[in-house]
């Protein structure tokens, strides 16, 4: 069953004084199935971030539509958008986006508090997640007291705690060292194996090689995709590198 359908998405930015039009996304169509782990790759300026912002309902497309569980984003009223984001989507960002005036526990609670969840319920939900992410001992520390990897795991916990249908990750390993990157990627695989749908935008071939499917975007379109199937991470890594080389050297579409 498909969780999210993206149909003919187009995004055109108009410069302020009505002059030039910049096409960020020209025609993007794909879908995400329940339980999938999708990575989106592309060079800088290929439209990755625009796509993610639109999927996160932080930005609106010029045309085309997005359906989550068959419901169109455009049918949601502006006032309900933030509640929608909170209830259905979880976010992991490159620069963690933790609030430094909250300790990790309160940072993780933030979306639940906004949704009006009682404290008991929040605590009950936090326990297993904190255990899985190995941040139980850090919950009362403040963001500036822990390492980048620990911060990112707290951010993952914040994304997971609302039981979202889809996790959107924007370069989640971008600010991490290689050890923390490995840890985080194996975590993503683990939660995905437990049924969580994940969509990740990344530059990193290593990060993408953990995904079950990789989409390549070029010039605002989905240019190519690779399914991992039964490939090992190493083989997947090789395949992605080949595709990227092809993309960079201006090769034709290979299906």
């Amino acid at each position, binding site marked *: 069953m498909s969780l999210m359908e993206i149909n003919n998405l187009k995004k055109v930015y108009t410069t302020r004084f009505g002059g030039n039009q910049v096409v960020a996304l020209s025609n993007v169509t794909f879908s995400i199935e329940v339980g999938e782990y999708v990575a989106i790759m592309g060079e800088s300026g290929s439209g990755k971030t625009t796509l993610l912002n639109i999927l*996160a309902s*932080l930005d609106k497309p010029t045309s085309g539509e997005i359906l989550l569980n068959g419901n169109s984003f455009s049918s949601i009223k502006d*006032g309900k*958008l*933030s*509640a929608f*984001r*909170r209830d259905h989507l979880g*976010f992991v*960002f490159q620069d963690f*986006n*933790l*609030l*430094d*005036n*909250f*300790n990790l526990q*309160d940072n993780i*609670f*933030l*979306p639940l*508090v*906004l*949704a*009006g969840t*009682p*404290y008991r319920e*929040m605590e009950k939900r936090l326990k297993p997640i904190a255990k899985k992410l190995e941040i139980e001992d850090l919950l009362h520390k*403040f*963001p*500036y007291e822990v390492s980048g990897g620990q911060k990112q795991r707290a951010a993952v916990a*914040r994304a997971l705690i609302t039981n979202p249908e889809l996790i959107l990750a924007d370069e989640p390993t971008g600010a991490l060292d290689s050890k923390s990157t490995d840890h985080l990627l194996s975590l993503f695989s683990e939660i995905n194996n437990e049924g969580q749908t994940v969509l990740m935008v990344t530059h990193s071939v290593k990060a993408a090689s953990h995904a079950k499917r990789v989409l390549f975007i070029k010039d605002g379109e989905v240019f190519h995709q690779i399914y991992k199937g039964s490939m090992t991470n190493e083989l997947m890594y090789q395949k992605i590198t080949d595709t990227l080389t092809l993309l960079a050297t201006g090769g034709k579409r290979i299906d």
Partner: protein
Amino acid sequence: MTKSFYLKLAFSNVRKNARLFAPYILMNIGIITMFYIMHAISVNEGLNTMPGSDSLKFMLSFGTYVIAIFSAIFMFYTNSFLIKRRKKEIGLYNILGMGKRHIGIMLLLESMIIAVICIGVGLISGMVLSKLMYLILLKILSFSVTMGFTVSISSITLTILFFSSVFFVTLIYNLGHIHLSNPIQLLKGSAVGEKEPKTKWIMTLLGLVALGAGYFLALTVEEPLQALLVFFVAVILVMIGTYFLFIAGSIAALKLLKKNKAFYYKANHFTSISGMIYRMKQNAVGLANICILSTAVLVTLSTTVSLYIGMEDVLNIQFPSDVYIRNYDAEANDIKVINDKVDLLAEKNNIKITDRYGFKYMYISTLKSDHQLKYDIQYDVSSKRVDITFVTASDYEQLSGENLTLDPDQIVLFTNSENYGFDQIKLEGQTLNIVNELDHFGGITKASQPLNTEYYFIVKDEKTMINLVETATKKSDRLIDYQLTFNNSGNNADLSRFNQELMSDLTSNISSTSVRSKLLAKSDFFSVYGGFFFIGIFLGALFLMATVMIIYYKQISEGYDDKIRFEIMQKVGMSMTEIKRTIKTQIVMVFFLPLLFAIIHIAFAFNVITKLLFLFSFTNIPLFIVCTFATILAFGLIYLLVYFLTARAYYRIVK
């Protein structure tokens, strides 16, 4: 790099940072204008022709010093905000290859540009407004004098010198700040991770105790004369309490709220409380400053306005009669000369004299407990103090027209407050039987709350009087004095001439004679209270300006800090309306907390201030209440206006 390049850079820096610099420049212009006006008026030749000009000039030059001190403090304070905000910009210049020396030149030029603008515009507006202010002052003093437009060279020189040096000192501070930090520190600027503040229970407790003690003192003081000392102690205690409570108490209270999980983990409390903890950590001192400044503005304005409006009452209380003539060591001849002179001058000036009361008297100060009066040589300031004036029965007969025969141990009593109410009173062991209590003595009537308690003892004759006093004081050199009081009427010019001639003639021709005239005192009153009023308004305006400035810069600097925070919250699922609501709770709390505390301070200070006003013979409490409310209202409105303006600036930044 050429000189013109630096100049261009400095100019464009000032222009680009307009949002930061404009209020600073405006405040400086205002301060410089006020300083110039105050000094120019204090040295104005025209004031010399006015009665009581000495005390007025003293007050005005005192006002100039006060303005100078506060200006320097405010300018320095605001400047430190600016340089903190600009760290990043300066760090960037540093990284792009400008050495510390080059940055120094740039900052020097910037300071010079700002100084020239501020001092130049300040002087011009000062010159323009000083004429207006001078006229307002004369109007306040109800004194008319023809004056041309004068520009005071000495004021201009002083203003330029003083403010140039203040700018110079701030520049040195800025250079020191830049010099001490490396480019990375500069670039990071204010964005260093803030630690969550610890709860300081002891400080909170001390703050509560200090505030409580200050309030208690202010509430329980009963004696006007004690009030002065108590007031200063209470002010210091309340200031300490305010600082401690803003710094530690606010955080303690917020942490307590945070501990209450059911309360804390609610959408609108969650972000507000944790946000407030950090805001209070950074802003406690600034907010305490605002609170104390606001209190100062309110107290200064309400009291000076009350005194000025209530001046006529005060004058009537201090002068039940129009003229008081006193002669010490009165001999029969002196008494005759005084009375003849009064008649002569009155006739010459067409003055009608009424309510004329003359009597010889002796005076001692005592301390009263129950029915005992003890001689007090030190003239103690105490609620027990009773001043006794002895008058003979024959003098009383003369001034009242009633017949009175007394035995040596009998007296007729008049008290200037409530009746004594008993048959006997003891003065240093001498028992006196009270035959009668009067409800007025000559022109003196009873008052509800007199500054000093005064008893008049009417005794058999001079011998009895001397005997009583000498026994009480255990000294034999006490002198008998004479007092003559009367009211006068006539046309204004005649009255003025009569009073002045009386004063100069009597005091120069008869030894140890003093003359106090209501008419002459009135112009002194006008210059003193009018001067107070004028300076009160000036200082009020200055404090208000400083308050506004501190608030503005607080909002702006917080706006930049909060911007990032709210972006994150939006991504995590907080809607724009929710964000606006948290912002609003936070600014409203930060903004109105100082005002709220200032009003509470005023409420508790009310008792002690009314007691202090008694010292100025001001007893019209309803008037004081009205003035206080009016000042609070006016101040509150201005405060509200500033809130809306700065809140707009804040929202613009956060968005």
